[in-house]
């Protein structure tokens, strides 16, 4: 397949605007400027482009929620706070083709009639923030940004806002709070950002990869884009493969290839002498998959059908050398550290789950621990929390407990073989409803 989003990878001097213009860059935005904003939205809806940040929400429909008659300013935010463990696609795009991102931002801003766009970039991405700043300056000099772009009468400014390294700021409302200079606490929804977003104005937040698709949709047409991949799961997708494969990295493949095709194709299969044990299909927040589920198609709908999610497309491959309990503990450490602390189930639950998993790994597991973990996960997800971070830690941990019960059993049995310090039992405990009883 001819690369679309990664076409600049390996091209010398690919970040320069001249290279980008020579490859037909900024012509998508030029085409958009000759259309009406509504026509751009329509074109995007027809392309069936779905958000690449994790939720897979149709991009064109997201734009159409912005109130058309809103008098004041409205904003577009490019979410480059790529912090999901196992995900490194946005950085790759920015590294090789920053102008493609800027062009996508310009098209989306034009479509929602916004004159100001922000790029919220992860704090650790120091180099990539500088790349974007350089590209913005270059685009300004060539008249693709700023006042009266290319004589069209349309104004657009893009600002790069660096985060401070919080995972939660990848959540769109926490991101908005962070841009406003506040603590990164997700907001209660509704109202949704499309109505009340940054500075109280209608705001659309799109992922870098989503925006990078737009120039191609405009230049080659929605039909072309929709012809790639599968119905309702169109276009190409960047899969970030990490873990125990021979050639980890970012690969661009049409949406809907199977995970087996990804792992055994460009990645060269599992490392020598080992077999696949499990994999996370879409970053660490997606429910884990067993080796037997490797033939599931890597698109939004097929993953949802299989009880997991494509998420960000960060495929984390684990081979038979991995202890799944330790994997769960590792994840729990990340989420307990990144929980914002705002609402109860996530704040308390992520910490509690981490403590339990640490204890099991340390050889002090007890019967009933897996049930306690499942209960924590159940009541920290499915709408019990303000933002999806509750689900993000609950789903992978509960899926590991459910799909690999024998590993927990092994740890707990090994622990009970060693004499344990007996904890005092309160006289009234035992007969009461509670965790694990």
């Amino acid at each position, binding site marked *: 397949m001819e690369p679309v989003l990664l076409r600049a990878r390996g091209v010398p001097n690919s970040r320069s605007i001249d290279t980008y213009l020579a490859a037909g860059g900024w012509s998508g935005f030029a085409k958009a400027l000759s259309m009406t904003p509504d026509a751009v939205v329509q074109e995007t809806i027809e392309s069936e482009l779905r958000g690449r940040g994790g939720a897979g929400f149709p991009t064109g429909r997201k734009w159409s929620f912005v109130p058309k008659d809103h008098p004041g300013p409205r904003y577009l935010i490019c979410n480059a706070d790529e912090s999901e463990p196992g995900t490194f696609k946005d950085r790759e795009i920015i590294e090789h083709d920053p102008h493609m991102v800027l062009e996508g931002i310009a098209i989306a801003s034009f479509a929602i009639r916004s004159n100001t766009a922000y790029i919220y970039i992860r704090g650790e991405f120091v180099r990539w923030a500088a790349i974007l700043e350089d590209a913005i300056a270059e685009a300004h000099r060539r008249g693709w940004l700023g006042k009266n772009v290319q004589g069209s009468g349309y104004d657009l400014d893009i600002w790069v806002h660096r985060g401070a390294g*919080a995972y939660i700021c990848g959540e769109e409302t926490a991101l908005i709070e962070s841009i406003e200079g506040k*603590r990164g606490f997700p907001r*209660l929804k509704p109202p949704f950002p499309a109505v009340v977003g940054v500075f109280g104005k209608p705001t659309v937040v799109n992922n870098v990869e989503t925006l990078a698709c737009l120039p191609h949709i405009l230049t080659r047409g929605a039909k072309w884009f929709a012809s790639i991949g599968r119905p309702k799961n169109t276009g190409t997708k960047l899969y970030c493969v990490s873990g125990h494969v021979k050639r980890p990295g970012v690969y661009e493949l049409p949406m809907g290839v199977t995970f087996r095709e990804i792992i055994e194709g460009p990645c060269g299969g599992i490392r020598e002498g080992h077999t696949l044990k499990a994999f996370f299909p879409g970053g660490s927040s997606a429910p884990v998959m067993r080796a037997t589920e490797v033939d599931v198609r890597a698109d939004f709908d097929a993953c949802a059908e299989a009880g997991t999610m494509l998420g960000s497309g960060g495929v984390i491959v684990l081979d038979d050398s991995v202890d799944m309990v330790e994997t769960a503990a590792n994840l729990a450490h990340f989420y*307990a*550290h*990144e*929980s*914002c*602390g*705002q*609402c*109860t*189930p996530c*704040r*308390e*639950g*992520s*910490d*509690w789950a981490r*403590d*339990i998993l640490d*204890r099991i790994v340390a050889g002090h597991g*007890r019967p*009933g621990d897996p049930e*306690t973990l499942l*209960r924590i996960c*159940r*009541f*920290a997800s*499915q*709408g*019990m*929390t*303000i933002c999806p971070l509750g689900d993000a830690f609950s789903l992978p941990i509960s899926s590991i407990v459910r799909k690999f019960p024998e590993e927990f059993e092994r740890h707990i049995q090994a622990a009970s073989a060693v004499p344990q310090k007996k*904890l005092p039992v309160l006289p009234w*405990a*035992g007969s*009461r*409803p*509670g*965790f*694990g*009883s």
Partner: protein
Amino acid sequence: MPKLTIDGREIEVPPGTNLIEAARAAGVEVPYFCYHPYLSIVGQCRICMVEIVGQPRLAIACATPATDGMVVKSETSERAKEAREAVMEFLLANHPLDCPVCDQAGECLLQDHAATEQGGQFATHMVETRRTFPGYERRLIGPHVIQNQNRCIHCSRCIRFTREVSETAALTYKSRGNSAYIDTFNGEPFADPFSACAADVCPVGALTVRDFRFRKRAWKLRATPSVCPGCSIGCNLFLNHHERVVYRFTPRENPEINATWLCDHGRFLADSLNAQSYLHPHHRAAGQLSRVTWSEALRALGFDLKAAHTLRVVGSANLSNEELFLARELFVGHLKGEMVVPVWAGEQRRMKNGRGEWQQATDAHPNSQGARRLGLRVVDPAGLSRFLYGAADLTIVLDPTAHPVLAEEEALQLLRVSPTVAFARTEHPIANVASWLLPTTSMACYDGTFTSSTGAVQRFSAAFEPPGEVRRTAHGGMSPTVPTLAQPYGPPAEARPLWFLLTVLARELGATSLDLPDVESVFALMSGREKGFAGLDWDKLAGPGEDSLRERQHVG
């Protein structure tokens, strides 16, 4: 007006009402910790989960507006109950089990909920080490507030209070996740003029008021509706008292005046109501004060008053409308004397009402507006001095603490010229010059009304009989001086409310129309005669009806 069903009860509420308030109107209690009607809604505690029929997920009642035809299940929903139990397990996982030594016990939302919701039955398999915040267990963060971060349930009410109400943004979160804790911004002392309200809104014992800590267990306190005597704004409050000792003021909800707030200045006047320096009537003969009985004192005073050709009276804007009315009718109307009410500007005070509007105090007295309404001559310090320089056969000072000028040597010299009658409660130099020293009581011992600077006539109620001397122990506790089995509150004092003394004097002077049995009758007479009080109903002046649940949840 949306009409909805909550737990099978139909209710119609104004548009925009959230489900907690709608349920309360329907008589259903939805538990909450982070919600507060005068603060923004954050939906952080997640305990107010309810089931809305037709929606796959549970919803938080605080952030869900009532809509027409909605069918809500709170107590009747197994799913909501299960979710609330889980939230309680989460909250209690790291909450210390120190209720017996926690000063919030008895008025703690978490404790109440744990005790009632699950039938007091609670078990957990949490065997992990509890999260603690070493160094933050007993931290004085400001002049009045002590923090115990271990008990914090991260509801952010205190933070929102300082941001949205007191507008100092003095409190903030630090750190993240389960290590997040409350701290003062920049680590500066929490010197907010409303700092104790942050402890009020704290649903648990994470923030407690230093001045009240360990003085009295919350369940021993009785609450009597009253009005703040601190300035002319007239904030509504409860006197919290036990065994004839006032321990604290807590806010009483009134959206028009103080929402559910009290400023630190007014709140910490509570202890001043316990002062009772003068316990018996005294008469000065040959330069010596000697104790007399009330009947001797009032009879003799009656003769003196009748004999006086010129009579002057220094009133006070700290007195109730009824007392000012009685004094005016008796001394000005009946005896043709001259009366002034000195008003002192004092320090500027302010308060935010339920609509978020600031109100300023015009002076330091709770009832200067009432004096004006009664047509009394209100004077400034210069006017008071001029008044004292005038000659009179007899001077009556109804409340020597009314104005700082009265304690100055110049004023005392002027009062020495002719006989002076002083009605006083607390230690005051006027006792050295008065020929009659008659003890009165604090406002905790009688009913009355104050007129606020905005013109609201508000009633305060008698909390207890006039106490004897109150003794303060070394650790700050208070008790009657000589409690016995027969008189557990100590020997009764002879101090009497001023209104009562004035009615007895009226009888002595033959003004029978003023010889009234209770304050309500005085008020009825006043509202019949005075335009400023016409049409007011004594029973309706006590403020909005008491909703014990609501009071507890907002203040606790």
